[in-house]
């Protein structure tokens, strides 16, 4: 099956939900950054507006997505997983996986990193910085920097460097400098803060490839638009495979880029349920979780107004998740908007539930998912018994789990 990504890209522009001129989705979003960055954000907005519809830019990105990244990714019917959740009479939800794990570098993160590096090249920036949690965005950024010969610095929390050692090696192998961040808990929040400080200091020469639909405008919109290819392909593939739309879209949410990428093309399609799954860590009623939309309050973190995990003083609190990619006390502003406007639903699953799903998918389908992705899969336990008939569920299989095998082995040995 071959999906014509070029024609998909240009389809249904009226469905796009655009933020206002200040970058707001309802009350969420905006630009809460030091003055030093304001000119650079304007420059980025201008470049984005100029190139996003430029035929040469589009042609280059489509060509690279096809021949370098390996798109389109398959929409795969998970037969044994569907059987596992079937009712005694054999009926039940039909579960599909959008195989972003089959992208070059093993996750959806490359879709955005590639788009942004092409933009950075056109803006004449020679130096690239990025933050990373699980290391997938760091690897994607290091990859595109190697491909285009740009200097690359990745900020990563020391705790994450330890639990994602394989990805640290991959980044360094491709020529990136990985800078350890010791502040706070040494996780994604701290790495993001440090990347922003670098950008404040080197803004004239440097482009910051932010990896999620978070941060100041235009990042949430731009990252979403580079990730929207996931949903656009999904729509075309659904049409091709069963001649209709999916009923439910399911994705994990840390910052929320794979979820936004999957959801975006279906936002104005009210028959399609959108479900995001956050990390409940050791439980949402403990202090150790990352369930921002479930337990957070409206605040400002890393340049955007959104739901934020914070204490009664307005200090940002440290998140917890077994999955480094979801271990973040913020969430993309558009997700906050989708929750408040009740267009999307958000739930959470615990570390233990995610670890069980990690094993389940490995054993039933021969697909080892990332721990992040495992959160979306784990929610099937709750979701499937609530459903009637045979709805089609598409899960964004956002990344592969090779990077997590040591973490999981440690957990399995301990329990």
């Amino acid at each position, binding site marked *: 099956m071959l999906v014509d990504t070029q024609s998909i890209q240009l389809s249904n522009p009226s469905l796009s939900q655009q933020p206002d001129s*200040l970058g707001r989705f309802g009350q969420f979003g*905006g*630009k*809460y*950054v*030091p*003055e*030093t*960055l*304001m*000119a*650079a954000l304007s420059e980025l907005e201008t470049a984005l507006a100029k190139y996003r519809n430029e035929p040469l830019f589009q042609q280059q990105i489509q060509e690279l997505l096809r021949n370098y990244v390996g798109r389109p990714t398959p929409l795969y019917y998970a037969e044994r997983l569907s059987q596992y959740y079937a009712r005694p009479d054999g009926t039940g939800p039909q579960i599909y996986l959008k195989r972003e794990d089959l992208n070059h570098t093993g996750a959806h993160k490359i879709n955005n990193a590639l788009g942004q590096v092409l933009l950075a090249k056109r803006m004449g920036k020679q130096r690239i910085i990025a933050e990373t949690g699980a290391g997938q965005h760091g690897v994607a950024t290091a990859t595109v920097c190697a491909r285009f010969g740009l200097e690359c610095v990745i900020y990563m929390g020391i705790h994450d460097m330890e639990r994602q050692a394989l990805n640290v090696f991959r980044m360094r192998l491709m020529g990136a400098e990985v800078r350890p961040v010791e*502040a*706070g808990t040494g996780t994604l*929040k701290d790495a993001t*803060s440090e990347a*922003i*400080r670098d950008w*404040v*200091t*080197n*803004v*004239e020469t440097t482009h910051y490839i932010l990896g999620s639909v978070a941060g100041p405008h235009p990042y949430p919109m731009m990252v979403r638009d580079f990730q929207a290819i996931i949903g656009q392909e999904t729509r075309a593939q659904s049409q091709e495979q069963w001649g209709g739309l999916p009923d439910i879209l399911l994705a994990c949410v840390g910052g929320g880029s794979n979820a936004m990428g999957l959801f975006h093309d279906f936002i104005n399609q009210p028959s399609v349920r959108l479900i995001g799954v956050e990390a409940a860590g050791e439980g949402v009623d403990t202090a150790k979780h990352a369930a921002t939309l479930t337990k957070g*309050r*409206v*605040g*400002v*973190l*890393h*340049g955007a*107004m959104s739901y*934020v995990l*914070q204490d*009664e*003083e*307005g*200090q*940002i*609190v440290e998140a917890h998740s077994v999955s480094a990619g979801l271990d973040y006390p913020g969430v993309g502003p558009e997700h906050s908007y989708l929750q408040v406007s009740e267009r999307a639903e958000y739930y959470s699953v615990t570390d233990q539930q995610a670890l069980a799903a990690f094993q389940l998918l490995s054993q039933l389908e021969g697909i080892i998912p990332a721990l992040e992705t495992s959160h979306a899969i784990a929610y099937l336990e709750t979701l499937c018994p609530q459903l009637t008939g045979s709805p089609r569920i598409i899960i964004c299989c956002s990344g592969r789990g090779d990077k997590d095998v040591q973490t999981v082995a440690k957990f399995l040995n301990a329990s």
Partner: protein
Amino acid sequence: MTTISQHFESLRQNNQRALIPFITAGDPDLDLTAEAIRVLDAGGADFIELGVPYSDPLADGPVIQAAATRALQQGTSLASILAMAQSLTRNLRSPLILFTYYNPILNLGIKIFLQQLVAAGIKGLVVPDLPVEEAGELLQQADAAGIEVILLVTPTSPKQRIEAIADRSRGFIYLVSVTGVTGMRSQIQTGVKDVITEIRSVTNKPIGVGFGISTPEHARQIIDWGADGVIVGSAFVQRLAEGTPYHRLRAVRDFCSELKTTIS
């Protein structure tokens, strides 16, 4: 006590330049912060900028980050800082300016926050992660409450932005001397002179220059380039971070008077 604008005006009339030390509240504890404020006030400071420690200080370099972390570990809260300030402001010559990131303001609610500043006798406010586009509501309510919100200009601000910022800023214009975060530097960027000239061309409001100014020589240079005041942060925070309480306060006093002498 006078407003920031009035205090700057009287300094101008006496052909004086302002020294504006910054310290992080609660490092090493609020008692020593209170002592340091008294020492600065008696030792030549014209305004004192008091930093509210924050978990994610995006505009701050390592020295102030570390001070904020220590202050938070001490349990320093906005309420305890304002209570400390309230006990002092009546007897201070120098107006107090609060420096805080936006989330703690949002958390409390803009209106309540401003009421608490007024009650504590705080005169000015700097919010480093709130650019002019996002500051509308705060600026409007602060004007009504009589709190002067000082906006920042940086070397990367285009002329149009400088005009908008100068128009909306109260008290003075805070010119960030470096493209970067707070912290001590070995030298100051020569481009600062041009930005001072550019700000001058659009406003008569005073210009205070901060970030990276860490020696009397730097301060002198900034004044020679035409600024109305200098803000010195990390170099004070560093002096408060080490030694016995006596030594810390003495280091702050000596540095303050050295700076004041140099710029007078």
